[in-house]
């Protein structure tokens, strides 16, 4: 009898392992390696070039004493909550509307998706115009006789972060819609039939049957949105450059500014380490629960 014993586990699924080499390399060399490198240099006073000149936790003390960093964190939380909720809701609603076997589906889909194709460098400018109280929407509405109308989200420190979200949703929901649509298209027709016979109203079918079935898609979407939130940068730069004042600063911008404008790599690395640390604390346990252990997502 050949091979009566359990074969060497190393060679089981060999093809799968070979195929995963790029992933394994990326994960271990680039992400783990790069992250460790970053963390290491966050304890130095590197300026323009990374140099191993350790200063302990100095960069971190300074980071947490900086008002701009604190504002950034607060903004990220608000912005994150808004864009998470609204892009999921709007993206799903649009996908559900498009899934009603409508005419011109292609056209509508492309309309909702096109903002995603446009560089934010300029669309940010357009939104800045649209939201500008002097010649944007407020101006137009006032010209129509509604003189008390006020809509200047980008120029009002207390609501600027909400204003930024408007453009963020404009740009991002199209992709979310496509993801949702892809998920909806994978649902078996018979499920719809069963729900119709059961007399379950359309919205309940979506809410209680279809959405749970689309759980994997939602998780993908969630990660895409969340990683987009943590990395948000262009959008803010294009619309407000963090203004008015520092009212719309975000952590990624802090990292970028301190790494490249301020040429203080150590500070930038410290900030990004803090960002990564919080991501790890949230993501890793969740990801293990979600992806580890059981076979099916």
């Amino acid at each position, binding site marked *: 009898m050949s091979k009566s014993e359990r074969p060497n586990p190393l060679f089981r699924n060999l093809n799968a392992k070979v195929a995963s080499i790029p992933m394994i390399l990326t994960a271990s060399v680039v992400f783990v390696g790069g992250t460790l490198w970053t963390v290491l240099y966050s304890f130095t006073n590197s*300026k*323009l*070039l990374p*140099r191993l000149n350790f200063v302990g936790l100095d960069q971190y003390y300074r980071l947490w004493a*900086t*008002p*701009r960093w604190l504002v950034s964190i607060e903004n990220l939380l608000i912005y994150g909550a808004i864009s998470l909720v609204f892009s999921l809701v709007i993206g799903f609603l649009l996908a559900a509307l498009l899934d009603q076997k409508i005419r011109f589906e292609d056209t509508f889909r492309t309309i909702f998706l096109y903002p995603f194709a446009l560089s934010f460098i300029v669309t940010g400018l357009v939104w*800045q115009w649209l939201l*500008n*109280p*002097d010649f944007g929407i407020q101006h137009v509405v006032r010209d129509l006789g509604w003189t008390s109308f006020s809509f*200047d989200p980008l*120029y009002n*420190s207390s609501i600027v972060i909400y204003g930024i979200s408007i453009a963020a949703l404009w740009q991002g929901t199209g992709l979310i819609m496509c993801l949702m649509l892809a998920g909806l298209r994978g649902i078996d027709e018979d499920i719809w039939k069963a729900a119709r016979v059961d007399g379950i109203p359309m919205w309940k079918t979506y809410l209680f049957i279809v959405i749970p079935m689309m759980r994997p898609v939602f998780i993908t979407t969630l990660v895409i949105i969340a990683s987009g939130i943590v990395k948000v940068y262009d959008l803010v730069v294009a*619309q*407000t*450059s*963090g*203004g*008015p*004042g*520092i*009212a719309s600063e975000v952590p990624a911008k802090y990292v*970028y*500014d*301190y*790494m*490249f*404008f*301020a*040429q*203080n790599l150590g*500070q930038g690395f410290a900030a990004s380490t803090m960002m990564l640390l919080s991501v790890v604390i949230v993501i890793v346990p969740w990801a293990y629960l979600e992806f580890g252990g059981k076979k099916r997502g």
Partner: protein
Amino acid sequence: TDLEVTHWWTSGGEAAAVAELAKAFDATGNHWVDGAIAGSGGTARPIMISRITGGDPMGATQFNHGRQAEELVQAGLMRDLTDVATKGKWTEIVRPKSLLDSCIIDGKIYCVPVNIHSWQWLWLSNEAFAKAGVPMPKDWNEFVAAAPALEKAGIIPLAVGGQAWQSSGAFDVLLAAVGGSDAFLKVYKDKDAKFAAGPEIAKVFKAADDARKMAKNTNVQDWNQATNLVITGKAGGQIMGDWAQGEFQVAGKVAGKDYTCLPGLGLNEVIATGGDAFYFPLLKDADKSKAQEVLAETLLDPKTQVAFNLKKGSLPVRGDVDLNAANDCMKKGLAILAKGAVIPWTDQLMSQDTQKQKEDLFAEFFAKPDMTVEEAQKRFADLIAAAD
């Protein structure tokens, strides 16, 4: 020999100016390979630094002269130009001298300054003042006094765009104008934190407070949008560098008739000698190294200097050139320069890190009316204390 030159001059005027440099360089039998990257130093610098540290350096690259390239030099990645400089007697021809000083690290010269940009200008709209029925102010104080009248006429007295560097720059200009050149140097060069917390600087903060009140209705981001407010008479004035002039010109406005410029805000007529310089990474290829020398010489050639700066709207780095073609405002600047009323600019005095923090502070100060002058000054002093 082909030599790749990276820089962030990409707008119309700037590009035209670069073309002059290229033309001059090409005339020497070499070839200028253009590597333009727009979006200010913040975008361009990581690219340049990556290229240099990644082992794929360009032939020459622009930096703001000052302390941006310090570490690259210390890491031994940049080329020492001392021999070229001695041959070309740069120490004698470059004016003001402080410009070349910024290129010297450990006694060696590492860069070639090519122009001077000055920040110290107040641009005023004649139309706006006419409309408000007040005479054209001759200095900052008169301007502040005229503000209520302007406001009454529905005009924003002072346009300050939303980007952080605009407010921070405006403060620096106020510091040099209201506080005077000495105060400016004491704070930024000597980093005298006690002085920065003192009453003299409090005056400057008072002026900055005026400025922020006057600017509170500016609902634009970009500096040129702010300039546009002045051009169209929607704003009374703007504190901005000499590059603003390009906007007025393009809009067909005539200095003196449609707009007025007050160097040093009319209080302290000095010119800060900020500007751009070229650095040369150390190359292995001998031919290219040779070409680098040629380029360095070409950049300081009088003809090149004139041609370049006329297009760029900035001032040449050598005094022995003829600039008849310059306009009113530019001539004012040249006159000041000739008088020797110059101060070094912040790029030369402080690290980018400190400057960035300063930007953050003033961005907040200008945007937040409830931030007190005292608080701002205290944070400013702290920042100066920690500056390097």
